[in-house]
Structure formats: structure tokens, C-alpha cells
């Protein structure tokens, strides 16, 4: 499934202000809970994963992809997106501060692969990436994420 199928506008938040990285993960996780695609405990799962394994979820400068295990409460494969303002440190020296989060809920090893590929394409295209960081409206964001 592609980004458009896994990430409806209801799970996109812009210009989000948070206190710390846990707050950032909770905020993006809340979008998933509120739209019924993960159980409440998945939020704590994502936080526990980052605590246990360190801030490896910050995969590139400014970008975090919080996620946990399928059995931690994923109902359907899904994505949620938040753009932070101001950016927040996750403790990943190479890639802090984080400006955008793509939270992932995966049921298996295949359903989210196409969307991840699309995300990687956006993140490796400097022009698209800059637009994603600086977008001020939902329309601007969906134009980038959905490619339309």
C-alpha cells in the first residue's frame, strides 16, 4: 500500500508544539489511536522501543520513524505524520533535532514496504524534503506525500 492509502489527512498534523521527544511520539501516536488503527498501548510500545534501543529511530537529519512490534497493538497497517515546530532533540547526536515524524504501525513485513519506498524517495529529494519541512498547509503536505 502506498502513502496515500496508509496516511489519510486525519493522521497528518502540522506545526505541532511538543515538550520533548516522548511528547512528540505520543502526539503522533494519538493520531493513530484516534483513527482506530492502533490500540492505546501501541503508543507506549513505541516509546518503550525508543527507550530500550536508543534513538535509532532518527534515521536521517531531522527525521524520526517511531514504531513498535505488530503485537504491541497494531489493528491495521498505518502511518501518521507530524511536523514539529520547534524541532525537538531525540538524543541522536548525528541527526538531531527532529523536525518531522513518520510513525509506522505494521502488521507484517510487506504491506508498508511501498509506502516506505515513497517516503525514502521524498527524503532523498532535497527539494521535496525542504518543502515537507516548511509546508504551512495540509494541501502543501499532501501534494508532497501523495505526489498529487
Amino acid at each position: 500500500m502506498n502513502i496515500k492509502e496508509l496516511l489519510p489527512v486525519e493522521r497528518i498534523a502540522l506545526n505541532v508544539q511538543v515538550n520533548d521527544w516522548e511528547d512528540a511520539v505520543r502526539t503522533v501516536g494519538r493520531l493513530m489511536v484516534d483513527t482506530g488503527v492502533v490500540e492505546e498501548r501501541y503508543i507506549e510500545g513505541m516509546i518503550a522501543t525508543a527507550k530500550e534501543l536508543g534513538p535509532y529511530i532518527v534515521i536521517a537529519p531531522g527525521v524520526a520513524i517511531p514504531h513498535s512490534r505488530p503485537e504491541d497493538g497494531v489493528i491495521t497497517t498505518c502511518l501518521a505524520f507530524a511536523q514539529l515546530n520547534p524541532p525537538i532533540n531525540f538524543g541522536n547526536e548525528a541527526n538531531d533535532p527532529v523536525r518531522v515524524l513518520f510513525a509506522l504501525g505494521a502488521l507484517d513485513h510487506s504491506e508498508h514496504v511501498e509506502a516506505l519506498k515513497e517516503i525514502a524517495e521524498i527524503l532523498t529529494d532535497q527539494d521535496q524534503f525542504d518543502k515537507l519541512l516548511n509546508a504551512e498547509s495540509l494541501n502543501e503536505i499532501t501534494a508532497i506525500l501523495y505526489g498529487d
Partner: protein
Amino acid sequence: MAKRLKILAVCGMGIGTSMLLKMQLDKVIKNLDIDADVDLADISTARGMAVNADLIVTSNELVDRIGDVTAPIIAVANFMDLDSLTEGVRSALKLD
């Protein structure tokens, strides 16, 4: 014919970050024209799977958790930086 190499992409769960890593590694091996398969592992299964791997690639935040393995390990900070990853693979596999 040279043997097909096994590259192991390791992350915490084997679902998100290692999947992204595999995508990037697939591009790298294509660019370098290497005959290799990229497998996914999570941190708990990585050590066992590492026995048969020619190269291990993981996040710089996880590298200390892999422990003693014989295969070379590449620690990646920026998963989107294909040039650095390509250089890392080239150097670790001694392709020059």
C-alpha cells in the same frame, strides 16, 4: 563465478528501519554491480544470522548491541545518504 554475498540489515524490530536500510542497500548493490542478497534482522536475531553474513549494516545507535561477529559492520547515521552508504559498502567489502 564469485559467490553471492549475504548482507544483513539490522534494526530494533526488523520491520521499519531495517526495511528502509534494505531499500537503500538494494540501490547500493545495484549501483556497485554486486551479486548480493539483503536480509532483514532484528537486534535479537542478528547475532545468530550474522554467522552466515558477509556484511552487517545497522544504525550507529545499535552497533554496540550486535556484539562480537566476524563479518564487518557498517554503522549508518543517515539512512538517506546513499553516497556514504555506497562508500561504506565498497570499503567494507574491499571492492577496490
